[in-house]
């Protein structure tokens, strides 16, 4: 029989009927809510027609009755008490302590929270210093003896972060050069200067877009992967295991990743540059009816000897920034998988920020030295 719960205020009677399972808890809770809103001086609970099979709803009824009784109202059961009530008395006889109080924080607690924030910041700076120091130390060791640089590990990371990233980097480069060529052609046409679209695409892709978009792509792909890999290893105590075996985690885990990304970024940038120019050529031949040989001639005139290098020298720096941020944040994970998610996000956001910031510094620097 379908469970029903009805509170009749005039008669001061709560009537329950039917079989009550956990699914019927909402119906019971509604009736109990009405009861709370208008508590009677004395209540009769009709339970004779009801079977309170599951504990959950029975507990809700028991708690509501307890609350009324504590408030001084008389509550009587019309019918035998539900089977679980004896169990509830047993449960309530055991001391479970009090609910944690969610009281408003005092001034002292607020001050303490500020202090904790500052301490955390200082600690993070300290960790960054330690990270830098230990990395430089293991890099110095590897410099002296190539055997200490784990070549197989470096190659594996180069494969994962470089070779496997080629398709997505290539597509992004084509798309971005197509977009800039399209906008350029449209804006330059009124001046009859469409031919300078080639200059726009070539200089834009080679100096900035190629390397910058590659770096952002790699930050999203590899920066997050580094942070997550190292974070999981931290959570699994794998880093401690390495250390306990006398191995230096910076040498085994951090350095190969950093070296791999520093080597791979220029290569990916070259791919992006080539694909970007190809995309530009494709679109100009289509939009401006510019045949390929002419595109190449114009390209030759447009770019200086340094244009290509101005983009490429930034690549290893960006790679270094991304790898350092990713591995550092990964090693900062402790305790929970919540931390892991947070620090992975931090790794990506910070590495993209650092890349763009470094790019701005490069732009100023190149302007000053007229590169």
């Amino acid at each position, binding site marked *: 029989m379908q469970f029903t719960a009805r509170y009749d205020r005039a008669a001061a009677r709560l009537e329950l009927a039917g079989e009550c*399972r*956990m*699914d019927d*808890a*909402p119906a019971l*809770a509604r009736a*109990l*809510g009405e009861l*709370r809103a208008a508590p009677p001086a004395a209540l009769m609970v009709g339970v004779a027609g009801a079977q309170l099979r*599951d*504990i*959950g709803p029975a*507990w*809700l009824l028991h*708690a509501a009755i307890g609350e009324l009784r504590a408030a001084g109202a008389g509550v009587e059961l019309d019918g035998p008490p539900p089977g679980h009530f004896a*169990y509830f008395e047993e*449960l*309530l006889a*055991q001391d*479970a*302590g*009090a*609910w*944690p109080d*969610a009281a408003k924080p005092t001034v002292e607690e607020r001050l303490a929270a500020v202090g904790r924030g500052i301490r955390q910041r200082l600690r993070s700076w300290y960790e960054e210093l330690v990270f830098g120091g230990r990395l430089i130390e293991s890099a110095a060791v590897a410099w002296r003896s190539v055997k200490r640089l784990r070549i197989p590990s470096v190659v594996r990371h180069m494969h994962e972060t470089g070779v496997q990233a080629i398709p997505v980097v290539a597509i992004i480069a084509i798309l971005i050069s197509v977009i800039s060529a399209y906008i350029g052609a449209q804006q330059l046409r009124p001046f009859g200067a469409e031919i300078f679209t080639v200059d726009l695409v070539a200089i834009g892709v080679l100096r900035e877009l190629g390397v910058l978009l590659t770096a952002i792509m790699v930050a999203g792909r590899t920066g997050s992967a580094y942070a997550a890999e190292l974070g999981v290893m931290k959570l699994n105590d794998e880093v401690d295991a390495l250390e306990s075996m006398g191995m230096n985690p910076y040498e085994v885990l951090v350095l190969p990743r950093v070296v791999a990304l520093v080597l791979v970024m220029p290569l990916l940038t070259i791919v992006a540059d080539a694909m970007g120019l190809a995309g530009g050529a494709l679109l100009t031949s289509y939009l401006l009816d510019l045949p390929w040989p002419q595109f190449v001639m114009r390209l030759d005139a447009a770019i200086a000897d340094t244009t290509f290098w101005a983009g490429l020298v930034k690549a290893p720096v960006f790679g270094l920034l991304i790898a350092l941020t990713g591995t550092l944040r990964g090693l900062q994970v402790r*305790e*929970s*998988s*919540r931390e892991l998610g947070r620090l992975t996000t931090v790794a990506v956001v910070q590495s993209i920020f650092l890349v763009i910031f470094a790019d701005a510094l490069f732009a100023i620097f190149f302007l000053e030295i007229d590169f």
Partner: protein
Amino acid sequence: MSTPVIAVRDVVNRFGAQVVHDGVSFEVQPGEIFGIVGGSGSGKSVLLKTMLGLRRPDAGSVVVEGRDITAMDERELRAIKRRYGVTFQHGALFTSLTVAENIILPMAESLTLDELSYRRLVELRLRMVGLPLEAAAKYPAQLSGGMVKRAALARALALDPTILFLDEPTAGLDPIAATAFDDLVLYLRDTLHLTIVMVTHDLDTLMRTCDRVAVLVDRRVIVDTLETIVDYDHPWIRHYFHGARGRAMGAGPGDARGA
């Protein structure tokens, strides 16, 4: 014999060429505590997953409360799963939620209740598993191993299941906490008449709580009461119950139970 709560019939599970179960059959009776034991790699977890409906067996059927879950569609299976309470070996509490939120989550998914009712139900589950109320506001990372297991059980009990699956409930607990957990399981069975299926490696737990035991050996299963199964003439079973660890605790399940 009454109708079984779960009947596993001729279940075959294989991964590629590797056969894990080759015709496994047994029945779990209502209100009993049913233990599953076996060596590492004998397919305990796979069997548990098959019973939970997380994995479809390659042959055979799993009948829960008279209905074959291997032939069900997703929607029916979800309805059946609401009758299940499951705890996983490492607790599997959601780390981003407090204990209270972990307990509310399965309820909020299918029932709409007011704040007070949720709070009261959280109190009920915490009291049932013997956790202090102050644990409600804590995150799983702030709890000890024993408390994580209890919190996981509290979450498993949230929807008043009729069948409780416990995967290694006492693994990693110190003997005192493990004994307390055994008592809790027995108490829940006796007061709530739950049917409990337990995968365990812990001989003490097995001896103290389980009515019947299924031993997974040679891709098949041997089911019997503990008293009989310890005397089975099978090399693995002999090693298991009469090896150094079994002997160290006085071997006979009778003594352990009587204690």
